[in-house]
Each structure stands twice: as C-alpha cells, then as structure tokens.
C-alpha cells in the first residue's frame, strides 16, 4: 500500500468508504466541508451507496438514524455549532442501540464562534452530549494517518457495541495535509448489519423504539446500556505514551494539542528536561487506569488543552489526589505553538524543583 498526500477531512471520507460506509448525510459548515465534498464526489457514485446533502444538521443525523435502522454503516460530520444540533439524534441513536459514526471537526465557541481549530466540545462529546443517561465512544485522533485509522475503527466499534461513535477532531486536523496510508480495501458490497429492519419477511415484525410508559422498563434499558459501557471501558480504552519511562513531569493532552505538546517535549528533552507525554486516544472511555498506574511513580502533571479546562477534570478524577496537577489552556480557536507550550512546561518544571 502506498502513501498519498491528503487533507484530514478527505482522509476521513476515503477511510469511511473503505470501512464500508454506505450512507453519508451532511450539511455544510467550516472547517469540515472537504469531507462532505469528498463523499459527494466519491461515495455517491458507488453501487448501493447514498449521499444526501441534508437541509439541516438535525435532518442529517436523523437520516443517519434511518440508515442505521435499515442496517447500513452510516456517517455524518459537522463542526461544533452543527454538532450541538445533532445531539437530539445522537441521544435517540444511543437509546435505540444503533451504530453510527459522527465526526466533529471542532472550531472555536461558544456560539457561532470562529472557524479556527479548538477543543472546547470535550465535555459535550464525552458526557453524552444530548439528553438522558448515555455515553458515546469518543476517539481523539492527532494526525491525518490516525484520522484514517480511527475512522475505520469507529465503524467497527459502532457495530460491535451498537453505539454511536464520535470522532473528535479539529479544524487543524481537517485542513492539514499529511501522507496517509489506507490499510483496507473498500468492500465491493457494503455490509448490512444483522438484525436490522429490512421488512418482516420470514420472521416476526420488529420494533425500534425509545419510548416506554413504564419507568422500570426504561430503568432496565439504562442498566443494560451501562453494562455495555463497562465492557467497552474494559476492552477498548486506549492511550499513547511518549518518553514517560523516566519522566518527572508528564503532559496530558489529546488530539492536535498533543501534537503541539509532543514538539515542545522533544525540544525540552534536548535541553535535558525529563518530560513525557500521555495522550488519551479514547476520550470516552477515558484511560484512567494507565494514569493511576503512572501516578505511583510520576508526581507532576500538566494538562494542556485548547479550551479553558475540560479533560483536566477527567485527569483529576483519574489521579484521585495522587500527584500534582497543573493546567494550561488557550480557548476560542487560538492555536499555541510548541515553543509557547515548552515555556509553560519548563517554567513548571523549574518551579517544582524537578531539575
């Protein structure tokens, strides 16, 4: 397989097609339009596949719901304000245990915000986002290659656990061009999920519903969802570490912020500072066990996010008082460079007497 140079948004589209995505429903919003356009060009002409530019984000997510009801691998994408509109549909998908892939190439908020990259939808993504007691799997890629890999994985996870999966990217990842290798060939016929609604032929009719007038029944549905979430947490939690073995200070960052932190850490290592990086790949389930384990030997942590401090709460919960925690964040779509982050890290390093 050869590498091709591609922007992140298009790479998600290509990866989705190769993962057997049959239906894509989108609505224009910057900075993710290349993905919608890629699907309009490349998915719409594939046999048995469907592309619809919906009239709204709300319509798009409900089209995803319909396609998933019928057993298709289905996807939608948007950026922060549009993702807020999709929350209704995501709640229904979660309640009905329907797989789907939702891409959020985050931009600055709140409100219409800016079109620059940000990470301020972490809370929304990792706490469910819509109404009701539920979670979605949330993946945090930090390169174009990982966008492609995690897109494929997202479809597999969604089907395996019958759950919506959110890819939490950002405007930089979507626009940035990098070499990428696609590790699968597209299936000639998109797969159809077993147990989908395809008409009551040779079997009794089936119902997909969320409403019940019986609270005990609904409680059992909730229990059943959370039993599955416990399994996902056990089986699918993923993170990456970089130079943590001898580190005295570990930076915890996800997505593009982790990429920036990595550059800072490389530079600081060359100056002799023992610093490392812990990067959650699954943002939900959050990799709290690896952090807990790390906190036995490493005591100083710095969470760096492109927001005012959201993931930092998960890190705090994971550390459970074991280790000192500092935070550095830039909100609103400001993208700090590695030298700015390096200054923050080294200041903390020296202040805490880690040299």
């Amino acid at each position, binding site marked *: 397989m050869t590498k091709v140079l591609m922007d992140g948004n298009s790479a998600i589209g290509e990866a989705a097609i190769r993962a057997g995505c049959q239906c894509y429903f989108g609505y224009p919003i910057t900075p993710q339009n290349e993905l919608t356009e890629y699907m309009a060009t490349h998915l719409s002409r594939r046999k048995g596949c469907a592309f619809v530019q919906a009239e709204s984000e709300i319509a798009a997510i409900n089209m995803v719901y319909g396609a998933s*009801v019928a057993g298709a691998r*289905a996807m939608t994408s948007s950026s922060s304000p549009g993702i807020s509109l999709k929350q209704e549909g995501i709640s229904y998908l979660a309640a009905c245990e329907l797989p789907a892939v939702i891409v959020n190439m985050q931009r600055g908020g709140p409100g219409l915000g800016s079109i620059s990259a940000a990470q301020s939808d972490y809370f929304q993504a990792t706490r469910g986002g819509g109404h009701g007691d539920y979670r979605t799997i949330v993946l945090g890629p930090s390169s174009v290659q990982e966008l492609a890999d995690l897109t494929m994985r997202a479809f597999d996870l969604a089907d395996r656990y019958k759950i919506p999966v959110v890819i939490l990217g950002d405007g930089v990842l979507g626009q940035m061009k990098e070499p990428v290798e696609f590790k699968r060939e597209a299936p000639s016929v998109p797969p159809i999920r077993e147990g989908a*609604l395809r008409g009551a032929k040779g079997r009794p009719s089936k119902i997909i519903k969320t409403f019940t007038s019986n609270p005990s029944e609904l409680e059992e549905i909730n229990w059943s969802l959370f039993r599955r979430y416990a399994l996902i947490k056990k089986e699918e939690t993923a993170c990456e570490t970089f130079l943590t073995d001898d580190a005295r200070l570990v930076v915890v960052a996800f997505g593009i912020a982790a990429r920036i932190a990595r550059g800072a850490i490389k530079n600081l290592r060359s100056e002799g500072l023992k610093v490392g990086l812990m990067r959650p790949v699954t943002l939900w389930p959050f990799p709290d066990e690896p952090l807990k384990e790390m906190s036995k030997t490493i005591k100083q942590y710095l969470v760096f996010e492109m927001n005012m401090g959201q993931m930092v709460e998960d890190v705090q919960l994971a550390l459970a008082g074991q280790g000192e925690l500092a935070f550095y964040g830039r909100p609103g779509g400001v993208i700090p460079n590695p030298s700015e982050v390096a200054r923050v890290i080294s200041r903390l390093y020296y202040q805490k007497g880690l040299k």
Partner: protein
Amino acid sequence: MKTIYMHPKSLKKTPFHYCPGCGHSVVHRLVCEVIDEMDLQERTIGIPPPGCSVFAYNYFDVDMAESAHGRGAAVATGIKRAYPASVVFTYQGDGDLAGIGTAETIHAANRGENVTTIFINNAVYGMTGGQMAPTTLRGMKTTTTPYGRDHILEGHPIRMSEILAMLDGVAYIERVAVNSPANIRKAKKAIAKAFQVQLDGRGFSMVEILSPCPTNWKMTPVKSWQWVDEEMTRVFPLGVYKDIGEKKGAD
C-alpha cells in the same frame, strides 16, 4: 360464503388505547388493509411519531422504527436511501409534520423521496393535552389559546397539502377525512394510491387526513364528526392537490 369483513393481517390483535371517536384507530386499520391488499407486509417499514400514535408500533404488524418529534421524513429518507427495496411510510400528526418537522417534511418532499406520509390533522396537540397546533382553526379554543386562536397573535392554520403540492418533487397529495363511512372509503383509496405512487417510484406522496379528536375538542364523538364537516373542511378543503399521473419520477 363471501367474506366481507376480516381483521387485517398486518394489524396486531392488540386493543387500541385511543379514545372513543378518535380517528387514529380507523386510519391504522385503513393503512393495514392497504398493506395487506397490496401484499406489502414483508417489505414495509413504518415510522411512528411521538404523540398519541407513538404506540402505533403496538398495532402495526410490520417493522417499525420510532422517530424523534418531527423528524419522520428525515428518518424515512435514511431508511429508503439505505434500503430502496423497502416500502416506507411515516405516520405523523399536525404538530409533528406542520410544526417542529416542517423543514424535514418540505425538504424530503422537495427531494422527491420515494416515501409515503400519512398526515393526521386534528388541529391540536393530542397527547400533551390539547394545546394549539399549527393547524388549529381561527377562534378555536385550546389549552394554550384559552380565548380562541387569535390570528393577529398566533397566526393562521397552516395548509400543508397546499404548500407541499407546489413542490416539484411531490407526486401525489390528497386531503381526506375519516368522519363518515363514505369519507373513510375515500381515505382508503387515497392511501392505496399513495403507496402505489411509491411502488412506481414516482416521488413523494402524502395523504392528509382530517381526524376527529373528541377528547381535546371537548365534544362527543358524533359532534366531533360533524365538526370536521362543518368547520374543518372549510379551512382544509378535501380533494386531490397534486397528482402527476403515470409519470415516473416527479421533476
């Protein structure tokens, strides 16, 4: 011996929870009769809405997927695009189709989605207790228009059949009522035609059904049937609003 009455095969033998005189149970039965007569039970997917008819899935013996409020046309689009061999119908009330779901409805219709919509117009939000609907008549008292709908403040009843008929993607639209045996027979014919339009791949089809809601109208069933004739049909005249004929694919 000639059989003149049977329980439709695609209607479950579950007793209806609907109020006496309500149009839902009649319409459920009509849709099921059509599904049986056209032999569609094994390929039909129905989309019930929130509201009184959320429990439609307890009555229709076909695959059913509940939609969020107003999103039926978008869900139908997703199902039909993913599985074009299916026969897809949405079942929607006036708040659902003409209020919260206006955008989804208009755009699915305009795309000429090959799906059928059964639109129950009873001029109120039923399940929530009789609030003003987009189709509430002028002067009509509801729990949120206790002094009668004042068009200066609350606007006018919206006529969805007329609006949708203007769209090029729409193949067939008829407004019927289920308030008399003759009208019920006409309603069934319209439903059958709408499904046939879908089978022929001619585009979006909808049957708007004026349906009595005696409970929220605070009338007896008999009075509510009369009220459909005397008041509702004056604002919502019955008839065919769009029929592109045999042409395949509305343009």
